[in-house]
């Protein structure tokens, strides 16, 4: 007996391939050629740079549903003290890349190394112990915990430092101090974002992964976040930042990656990318220039 599935998809087991249709690119009336992997990606750059990297990922393949890869051989490396920006269209796999580095999405093939040590598929909490911090893009607070408890969880592995770090975070986001007893679930979008960022700053990580930290924040606070990121980086922390506020991100970062369809489309210094007309057209848009 075969069950007619009430859903719309006739073949539930069909494995969608991510190679076709063409890459997701911005609407372009000029009909610019979509970026194709072969044209831009040359692993030699990566291999050369990755040599002395603190954190590196090589030819990562990863995904959520069996048989569907979201990351298709993404490469990434960060040197110690670097600030890296990752940009790309929606659904490119930026968040997935961060999650994969952080052990939240299983690696199917490829490797991740930290300080020369293989950390592929290590559990997230052990990475925290090695000094990696992460701010997720969505669902980034504990709704039923108060702000204070949220931050306390951020300092879970170093409870002794809680007081000091709490002061530090409240310094950056004074709104949090006033509301310390409010449950995070009732916070506004922006306030949540502050909590999420604050939570990651509770430890003093040596590598910080930020997934769209400025989203939902007021312009004033967005500035603050970028400044903070840079300051933290100046203090010696390696930062990897995914941003849709791409221009701002590329302005401050040492190096930028453009991710498309789960693989690197471009990799260059932030300044180069920001001025690359192709990148502007496909990923940055011209709005902010207008």
């Amino acid at each position, binding site marked *: 007996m075969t069950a007619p599935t009430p859903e*719309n*998809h006739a073949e539930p087991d069909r494995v*969608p391939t991510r190679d076709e*249709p063409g890459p*997701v690119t*911005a*609407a372009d*009336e000029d009909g610019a050629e979509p970026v194709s992997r072969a044209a831009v990606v040359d692993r030699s750059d990566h291999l050369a740079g990755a040599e002395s990297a603190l954190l590196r990922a090589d030819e990562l393949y990863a995904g*959520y549903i069996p048989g569907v890869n979201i990351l298709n051989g993404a490469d990434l490396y960060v040197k110690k003290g670097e600030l890296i920006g990752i*940009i*790309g*269209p*929606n*659904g*490119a796999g*930026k*968040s997935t890349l961060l999650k994969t580095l952080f052990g939240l999405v299983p690696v199917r093939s490829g490797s991740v190394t930290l300080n020369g040590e293989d950390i592929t598929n290590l559990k997230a909490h052990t990475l925290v112990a090695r000094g990696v911090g992460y701010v997720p*893009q*969505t669902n980034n607070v504990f709704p039923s915990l108060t702000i204070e408890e949220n931050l306390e969880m951020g300092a879970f592995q170093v409870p002794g430092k809680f007081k000091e770090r709490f002061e530090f975070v409240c310094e950056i986001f004074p*709104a949090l101090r006033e509301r310390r007893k409010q449950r995070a679930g009732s*916070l*506004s*979008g*922006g*306030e949540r*974002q*502050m909590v999420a960022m604050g939570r990651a700053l509770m430890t003093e990580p040596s590598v910080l992964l930020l997934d*769209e930290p400025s*989203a*939902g*924040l*007021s*312009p*004033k606070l*967005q*500035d*603050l976040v*970028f*400044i903070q990121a*840079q*300051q933290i980086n*100046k203090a010696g922390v390696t930062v990897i930042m995914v941003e*849709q*506020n*791409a*221009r*701002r991100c590329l*302005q*401050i970062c040492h190096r930028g990656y453009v991710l498309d369809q789960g693989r690197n489309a471009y990799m260059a210094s932030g*300044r180069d990318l920001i001025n690359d007309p192709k990148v502007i*057209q*496909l*990923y*940055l*848009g*011209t*709005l*902010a*220039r*207008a």
Partner: protein
Amino acid sequence: MHADTTPTRKAAALAAFAGLDHEPGVPKPDPILVVDKVVRRFGGLTAVNVDHVEIQRGSITALIGPNGAGKTTFFNQLTGFDSADEGSWTFNGKQLKGVPAHRVARAGMVRTFQLTKALSKLTVMENMRLGAQNQRGENFFRALIPGSWRRQEDEITERAEELLERFKLAAKRDDFAGSLSGGQRKLLEMARALMVGPELVMLDEPMAGVNPALTQSLLGHVKDLREEGMTVLFVEHDMDMVRDISDWVVVMAQGAVIAEGPPDTIMSDPRVVDAYLGAHHDAPMSAEEFEEQLQEAEAELESEIEEKA
């Protein structure tokens, strides 16, 4: 990228706003939504306390304000998702206080959610179809006769496909909405709201997390919608977008409307700069400027640390 000639509706909207005072609560010539004395408290916190606000029909109005200003809560009150402690509001002259959320939507006032609500185990296409109004097949008895709703369904699908194309979600058509990325969810949220074909669409930070290039093309779409007669009220923190698209800006802070006016005026209003924009002024910063600012901040911080020490 869009026609250089100012479109008619935009002109009309600008004309309507032309002579207005830049005062909070200023009356508009043809308001679609009129809000009076809406108050919402949570314990000791007054999240919303809006004395009077009017939204001009056929315009694109931006609602901005610092985080926690009460924008989302205000949306919740207006659309029936939360009950206001006090106040009243009319939409198209109709009282909407106490009207349940689905009736508000049916009346033509549709909102999106800041924290997206994708219907996870429905495909993207089904999500879209759900938005369409007056579907015959949504009636229990007619649902049993496919013939009675097939045609309509096809039309809806066609419309949905167009929107998906614009929102760069066409490739995701048959995937579960639960598998979308953060930005894609935002896009779906907005596209789905547009499927309703509302008179007034209220977008809560529609572009946060959406790729800038795509944002730009979508703004064009929103402008087109205004040409078709839709009124748009949106919350956004991206000032480039606000400047580009909005005809009028309302500023909220600590629950109250503190300023209203055209984008340029508002963005140079010192109160707004102080409460909201900060040093982030009109034009995007150049790298040098940024560096400068950074150094300033750093110096400040260092001196603070020294003070403490």
